[in-house]
């Protein structure tokens, strides 16, 4: 009994220490529309993995196009701010144990701050309405 309790404690501590690594993240700025094509030739359709997960969300758009994508690292206890467009920035703070604090800035002003755990493969999607019944989305992914 005693050694089992010690084992569980050690595993918990090991799991905790394993989660202190630098986070590898990927941020994408997407445009959602019901049109089949984007008027911007620089846009490219979003990847199948993100597309599938967006389809499972209560969003009304059928197509998503990638405007920008950035991969970045955040050391534990540190923060990294990335610019996805001239009006869209996100700052990610690594709180340790896959827990992050994400602050979204719109035109330089803080709009929302989200704190949550983001295990590998999971997504945090920030979004809002855009002109002509379209949408903007920031997809933050804990890269594999």
């Amino acid at each position: 009994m005693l050694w089992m309790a010690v084992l569980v404690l050690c595993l918990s501590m090991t799991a905790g220490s394993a989660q202190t690594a630098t986070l590898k993240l990927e941020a994408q700025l997407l445009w959602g529309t019901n049109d089949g094509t984007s008027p911007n030739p620089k846009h490219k359709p979003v990847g199948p993995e993100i597309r599938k997960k967006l389809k499972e969300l209560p969003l009304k758009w059928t197509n998503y196009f990638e405007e920008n994508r950035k991969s970045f690292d955040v050391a534990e206890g540190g923060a990294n701010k990335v610019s996805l467009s001239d009006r869209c920035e996100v700052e990610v703070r690594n709180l340790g144990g896959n827990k992050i604090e994400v602050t979204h800035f719109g035109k330089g002003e803080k709009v929302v701050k989200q704190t949550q755990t983001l295990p590998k493969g999971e997504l945090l999607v920030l979004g809002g309405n855009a002109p002509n019944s379209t949408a903007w989305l920031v997809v933050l992914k804990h890269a594999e």
Partner: protein
Amino acid sequence: MENDAHLKLQAFVDGELPEAEARVVASQLARDADAAALIAEMKFTRHALAGHEKAVRVPESRDFYWSKIRRQIEASEVERPAPVAIPWHAKLRRFLAPATAVAVVAIAGLLATQPVGVVGGTETSLSDSGAFTYRDFSSGTTLVWLSYPAEETLDDED
């Protein structure tokens, strides 16, 4: 009279003494009135019991009767249940039950130390009152939908 002397007299009455020893006891009875009185009482008692006790006869011969009892005793010793061997899965279950309980307590303790958020352990701080948060547990996706920027603002920008 000593107990051994009583037993010897009893054996004499029952005819169980060797012949030489029986002659010694018989000669002793002529000199010892107490012994003779005891012998008389023993014979009287034996006679009384023999006259009023129903004789029980077994259908088998004496040797066969006792051999039958011996076989039954030996059979009961053979049939004594052997110690039950505990199967490996029962041993494992006996080990895992307390271990599982400890693990559950440990996991519950770990979960209890996790901060409780609004949705799936998340915490949202908004300057946007029209926003909402949605969590899709199957795909592991959290959606924070904002009313920012207002559509009229976008229209102005375009």
